[in-house]
């Protein structure tokens, strides 16, 4: 399980921002989590609560938006959303889709705060 170290990295990044703004209270942190990131959402939520204790983010909520993998279909010449990561095939025509455009991201995209 590497979700704890990922939670710590999220907290570190957001805490720097909080320090920069000064005297704000964060109520939530918004994260995009790709389906190919290798990170398990529930483990991450659990780890986040633990890791927040004693930091400026204590009491904040982690809001995770799971994002699907986007692949490029060489036959349709179009970007397609993968419905499952067990089968890298175009959902329209069934062609294999080796080219992955996105889906590996673990990215903090926003925070809600009270100043």
């Amino acid at each position: 399980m590497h979700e704890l170290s990922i939670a710590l990295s999220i907290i570190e990044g957001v805490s720097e921002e909080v320090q920069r703004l000064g005297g704000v209270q964060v109520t939530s942190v918004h994260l995009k989590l790709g389906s190919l990131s290798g990170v398990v959402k529930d483990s991450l939520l659990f780890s986040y609560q633990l890791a927040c204790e004693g930091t400026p983010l204590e009491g904040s909520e982690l809001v995770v938006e799971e994002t699907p993998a986007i692949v490029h279909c060489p036959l349709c010449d179009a970007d397609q959303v993968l419905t499952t990561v067990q089968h890298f095939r175009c959902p329209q025509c069934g062609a294999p889709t080796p080219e992955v455009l996105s889906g590996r991201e673990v990215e903090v995209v926003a925070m809600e705060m009270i100043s």
Partner: protein
Amino acid sequence: MNPQPRLVALRHNVFKKNDLLARGLRSRFQQAGVHVISLVSSPGSGKTAFLEKMLTTMRPQFRVAALVGDLATENDAARLARSQAPVRQIITGTVCHLEAEMVQHALEGWDLRDLDFLFIENVGNLVCPASYDLGEELRIVLLSVTEGEDKPLKYPTIFNSADVAVITKSDLAVATEFDWAAAESNIQSVRPGIQTFRLSAKTGDGMAAFIAFVQSRRSAAIASA
């Protein structure tokens, strides 16, 4: 009146620190002319036996070395040292994967220009290592015939992150009634177009073809540098 929370847009890639370090390592490796190959698999799939065979077979012809990651013990490094190649153990403690920083630290004091190939054996784990770039040129995922044909479907992320797949312990395939076609089809399902090798570190079967493959990858990398 209670102040209303306001939303502030941020853009923070959680893997940024690791990705930057890995990028730095990759350019160091390229400048030094060392071809870096990492190995990922579940525990017990034969990474260490495979690597020992690779090091022993390649050593007369190439300057090879290895870093080996484990949660605890230096047993693997001791085993690999039998090949006479330089080997360093990375003990990760509670961490279930290698990170670029650990690789960077383990390389301190080594002159990379003295090496043709450097192998990095990751911690046995089919989940966490997928997320961490180590600066390697080639990532090998290993699957042993004793694990079952559906492993790629259970762990698609790590198979998708690999550049080449190796099916190990081929000498046990008959005993385990291993279905080669199903396994290879599952690998292709999660990583279309990936090159797959079948071999046995114990009998040596298939090792020559794989060694020829990594040599050709290194030559191609040097030619394009």
